């Protein structure tokens, strides 16, 4: 075994990682510390120059009303999406694992189908299912004399958005949790059943605790994905005016970076979002770990 072999094998990953992760990250930090300021020149005309501005972009980002409002909206949305997705995925996984249902293979595959549908496509599809002129919900309600429902109005928009993402991510989470359940040694279940443990008690007292690490993992991925939600609201914003161009934080970042020509402000916001993601992930992992330890103690 030559000593250089592992470095050769790692080289493509490391080179690309340096070029496409590290370099952009460093560049984003560099951009975020600069700003264009109008300097007074001798001729009396103001000339815009790029200068080092320290943390000015960060402090203006933190005071940015639109970004702040975007985080508030994202928080409401996350409180709907994450518990419902995880709860339903766990329920379906437990039902499949209990072997108490008919057609387990068909239902499992059917619930997994939306995984194959890209977020943009799901957004377009559900957009039409919400649009009053084409929605089956509105069609049916019109027979009941209800004509003024608009699922894309501000009243319904969180539910409408959350539904698209729940629909898209339910199946994948279910399959991961189901696979985790299958991996547990069957003797554990058999012993519990022999002790007279019912199916529901078995699920709550034995299966869910066994699955906690997998649940922690799916929760963490769900959280990271939620903080980065972009495709679905962007698509819906093309179909309704309810979603503004600064509805979620990432949309505000895009607007600053590419529509209004303020890349420095955008870079600062992007770094703040990265920091928020990391803090949220660490807190989530901490909470899970401390729970686990308490249970083990």
């Amino acid at each position, binding site marked *: *075994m*030559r000593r250089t*072999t*592992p470095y050769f*094998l*790692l080289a493509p*990953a490391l080179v*690309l*990682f340096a070029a*496409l992760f590290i370099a952009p990250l460093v*560049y*984003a930090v560099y*951009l975020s510390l600069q700003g264009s300021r109008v300097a007074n020149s001798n001729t009396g005309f103001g000339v815009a120059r790029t200068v080092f501005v320290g943390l000015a972009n960060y402090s203006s980002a933190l005071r940015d009303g639109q970004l702040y409002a975007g985080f508030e909206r994202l928080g409401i949305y996350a409180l709907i999406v994450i518990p419902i997705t995880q709860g*339903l995925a766990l*329920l*379906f996984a437990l*039902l499949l694992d209990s*072997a*108490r*249902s008919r*057609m387990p293979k*068909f*239902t499992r595959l059917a*619930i*997994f*189908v939306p995984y*194959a*549908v*890209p*977020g*943009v*496509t799901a957004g*377009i599809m559900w*957009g*039409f299912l919400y649009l009053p002129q*084409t929605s*089956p919900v509105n069609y049916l309600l019109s027979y009941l004399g209800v004509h003024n429902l608009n699922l894309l109005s501000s009243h319904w928009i969180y539910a409408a958005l959350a539904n698209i993402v729940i629909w898209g991510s339910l199946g994948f989470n279910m*399959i*991961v*949790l189901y*696979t*985790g359940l*299958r*991996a547990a040694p069957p003797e554990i279940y058999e012993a519990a059943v022999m002790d007279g443990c019912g199916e529901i008690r078995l699920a709550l007292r034995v299966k869910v605790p066994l699955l906690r690490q*997998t649940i922690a*993992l799916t929760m963490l991925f769900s959280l*990271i994905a939620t903080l*980065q939600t*972009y*495709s679905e609201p*962007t698509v819906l914003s093309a179909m309704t005016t309810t979603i503004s161009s600064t509805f979620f934080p*990432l949309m505000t*970042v895009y607007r600053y970076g*590419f529509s209004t020509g303020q*890349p420095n402000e955008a870079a600062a916001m*992007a*770094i703040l979002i*990265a920091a928020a*993601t990391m803090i949220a*992930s660490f807190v989530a992992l901490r909470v899970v770990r401390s729970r686990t330890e308490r249970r083990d103690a």
Partner: protein
Amino acid sequence: MTGTTTRRKPILPTAILVLGAIYCLFPVAWLVIASTKSSGQLFGTFTLEPGTGLVSNLRQLFTLENGVYLSWVKNTMIYAFGGAALSTLISAMAGYALAKFVFPGRETFFRFLVAGVLIPAITLAIPQYFLMAKIGLADTYWSVLLPCLVSPFGIYLCRVYASAAIPDEMLEAARIDGASEWRLFWFVAIPVMVPGLVTVFLLQFVGIWNNFLLPYLMLSDPTKFPLTLGLYTLISQGNGQTTLYSALLVGVALSVLPLIAIIMFLQRFWKMDLISGGVKG
């Protein structure tokens, strides 16, 4: 389990799962029906009643802007197959090295690479765009392909799978027989890692196929767009221009059905226990 066939099956679990299945399949069924409707029928007839506009919708879709839809299909294939294949190879090499070799800096490299999972796509995509623009790569195929090639999660999975699946004795035996390290990787490690690699490939494939933000930032030439971005431009043009909607819907249906078929076929090869933590490294 032997008890399952004799045990009575209550109705509630089946009912809940069937409701879930209907919820997940309904929008796709609606999409297929809606794509057969002319734009008049789309807004005029009952949502679940098939229309008669399929042929004209297809004609409108394929003649749109000199048949740009077919370019989107071709581009998506290039991005998804090319990107997933290359990134799986890179992940396999890195994962194998991290699992089966002891060398200074191993854990540091590993932690570095895996920490990449936590960096949001947008935080990288904005500076990636400015850097790509500087070296003249913005609005090229490379601008979308290159950022997809490193997959921290893929490297992590490959390491876990390689350390669980490749016995050290197998490598030692081949080394004693005089095999080069390169041969060892291709003919001993890779064949054993195939089930894990299929999983990594599929995750990357679906990830790239779904990608919207990156091509949205990088590309401005519609003939280089993937399907997601192309369809998005149709819906944002369609605002108010409802005649485009029926062509758009048939385009959405055509883009989704093959992917569903591929995933349904390939899901049996997935090593899902790799993701759920069942395979221990």
